């Protein structure tokens, strides 16, 4: 049991020798992508390149905007969601990519 866990840990360590390996291991899985301009995506990763251009499928896009109420001057945080069946993401807008959390 401990040996199996150690082997799995060693395997993961070998598998992630450079950061892009993390992306490679996420192929065909749903991932979370944080983009510039307060955009977030969740979708299935079909393909990617070294620029982090990505092709995602079954995508949910979340855009967060902050509006100021004219009367109370309160900040109102609003999120807009839309679904996109198939999406090409240009890499230079990518901030963060996260594979699915196993515990989540």
């Amino acid at each position, binding site marked *: 049991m401990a040996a199996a866990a150690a082997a799995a840990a060693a395997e993961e360590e070998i598998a*992630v020798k*450079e*950061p892009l*390996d993390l992306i490679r291991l996420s192929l065909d899985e749903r991932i979370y992508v944080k983009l510039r301009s307060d955009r977030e995506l969740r979708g299935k990763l079909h393909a990617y390149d070294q620029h982090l251009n990505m092709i995602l499928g079954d995508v949910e896009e979340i855009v967060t905007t902050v509006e100021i109420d004219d009367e109370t001057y309160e900040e109102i945080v609003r999120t807009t969601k839309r679904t996109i069946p198939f999406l090409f993401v240009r890499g230079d807008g990518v*901030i*963060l990519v*996260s594979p699915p959390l196993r515990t989540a």
Partner: protein
Amino acid sequence: MSTGGGADKSGGGGGGAVKTPSDFLKSIRGRPVVVKLNSGVDYRGILACLDGYMNIAMEQTEEYVNGQLKNKYGDAFIRGNNVLYISTSKRTLTDDA
């Protein structure tokens, strides 16, 4: 006894002297780090690895915006162009300065 100059002792501990930024980056692999982005957001976690573009893979990553914890990611990939600095978090950082 270490007589390293300058305020930054991160990664300088132990026998070998750290000579270049690349040596520093190699030495902090596997350690808890703070990554600050150009946008001011902090990511704290274990540094798994990085590459020549300063792309970063982290584990047990926490996202702090204005000092407040906003998100947690089991693993996270950060694209290198966003990175302002990487710091080992041996001591508590004060962003108040």
